[in-house]
């Protein structure tokens, strides 16, 4: 693995196949011979080429950027969201993480909020519902304002940036034994709530996003599986921040706080 040169390995793939949202699914077994330099998704591409050749329906899975920034990819690999490597999305995982003769179990991200569309592709639109419910932030339109017009403390900028790194992949939900979406939601709440530009609507945004989240997902019990699975290593600190802001939002006298 660390020798730096590539080799070819044989792996047994056990992939989840499911024809539609309301169909029963099951595992299908395929043998793959693949270079350790290939990415995990390239291996699935290779499988699909083979399936195409014999005229069977290719495996449905999602991907877009293939460089860990869009959040489209994401499957459960050997019981771990995004596979065995930490701080990486499925598309950044390479076959050198596996050994000759390994069995690799591939399943879709599962949660009631993520119904399977087909095979490994799931509908993660509830995450969009959460974002939508967060609404807008107030900014002046018109001519572009001067750069650095709004002072942002360095510490807050750093923290907000960490939160903003969330790519919305949904691995946190998939990894959570409760199917809770706390890490995702708190990252979104955190990145606006920490910045001066996000202060005007801070409390209503927190309230709405949390309440929308609770429509689709489970309740957090602080296992910490989400953060361990997260390709962007979003911290559990944001969950605490969200929990604090949610209750504050309910208590706050918003008129006197000058915030909404």
């Amino acid at each position, binding site marked *: 693995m660390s020798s730096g040169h590539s080799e070819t390995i044989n792996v047994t793939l*056990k992939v989840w196949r*499911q024809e539609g*949202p*309301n*169909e*029963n*699914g099951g*595992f299908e077994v395929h043998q793959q011979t693949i270079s350790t330099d290939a990415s995990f998704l390239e291996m699935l591409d290779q499988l699909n080429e083979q399936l195409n050749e014999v005229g069977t329906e290719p495996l449905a899975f999602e991907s877009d950027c293939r460089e860990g920034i869009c959040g489209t990819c994401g499957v*459960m690999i050997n*019981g*771990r969201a995004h596979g065995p490597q930490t701080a990486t999305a499925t598309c950044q995982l390479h076959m050198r993480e596996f050994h000759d003769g390994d069995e690799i*179990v591939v*399943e*879709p991200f*599962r*949660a*009631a*909020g*993520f*119904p*399977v569309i087909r095979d490994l592709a*799931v*509908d993660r*639109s*509830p995450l969009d519902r959460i974002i939508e419910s967060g609404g807008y932030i107030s900014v002046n339109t018109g001519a572009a304002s001067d750069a650095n017009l709004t002072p942002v403390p360095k510490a807050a900028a750093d923290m907000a940036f960490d939160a903003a790194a969330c790519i919305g992949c949904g691995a946190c939900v998939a*990894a*959570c*034994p*409760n*199917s809770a979406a706390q890490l995702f939601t708190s990252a979104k709440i955190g990145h606006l709530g920490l910045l001066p530009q996000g202060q005007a609507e801070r409390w209503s945004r927190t309230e709405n996003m*949390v*309440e*929308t989240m*609770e*429509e*689709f*997902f*489970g*309740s*957090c*019990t*602080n*296992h*910490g*599986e989400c*953060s*361990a699975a997260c390709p962007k290593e979003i911290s*559990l*600190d944001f*969950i*605490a*921040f*969200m*929990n*604090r*802001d*949610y*209750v504050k939002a*309910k*208590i706050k006298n918003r008129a006197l706080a000058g915030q909404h």
Partner: protein
Amino acid sequence: MAQTTDQRYRVTPVRPQSRQYPFPLNLYQSAVGRKWVMAITGIGLIGFVLVHMVGNLHVYEGPAGMHKYAESLRTLGNGLIPKGAVLWLLRVGLLGMFVLHLHSAITLSRMSGNASENAGRISGAKKYEGGRDHVAATFASRTMRWTGPIIALFLFYHLADLTWGWWLGDAFVPGDPYHNVSTSLGNLPVAVLYVVANVALAWHIFHGAWSMFQSLGVNNPRYNQLRRGLATFLAGLILVGNLSFPILTQAGLINEDKRYCPIGEIEGNACLAEQALDH
């Protein structure tokens, strides 16, 4: 028209929003708010467990010391309000916290169950058919829903045992806790039961006392490291203190040889009270 594809996969909420009650009831309607209730009642319950454990150390002073301690609980706030009133207030508060803690735990786990059971699969209740790997979750965090009910069942047993005297029958002497403790815990199976239940309690607190900081949003990089330490310390302290009772009773440290007064001595335990004064 674009709508049709959307419609097909639109995800139905597992827990649609309902009309909000006025503050502060609306807090309890949300899961995040309910976790606050769990955390705050958890703090209260841990406080009780600690006081209960420390207070019971009086058993090592012998029958008279134990009697004096039990009596001092009944006379808390004496002179101001009728005898036993403070104790009853504490009991009612404790019961309230226990009920809230339990109710939020049950409803929240049902909520999580709805959000994950049968996910993506029409039959079968397992989240991942191919199994899953836990990376960060601890044994304690994953067994909260087991240790919790064990503690609740044990609590009932314990009250029936040493407060109501259901199991000891005629051997139970109201007002002589030393006698009751040594009789009950002198029985090996009972001692084993107490050990098992208190291990479960310590496991529960090991996760709970850490988790409550997150639920309450008490989080600061400066002292985040201390949170784990505090939870471990609390769980350890309660474990050692509470396990000492069944174990040392079995070892013969708590027994009736230490007694100068007849068991359950007459009206108001006059002899015990006298001994306690000498103490």
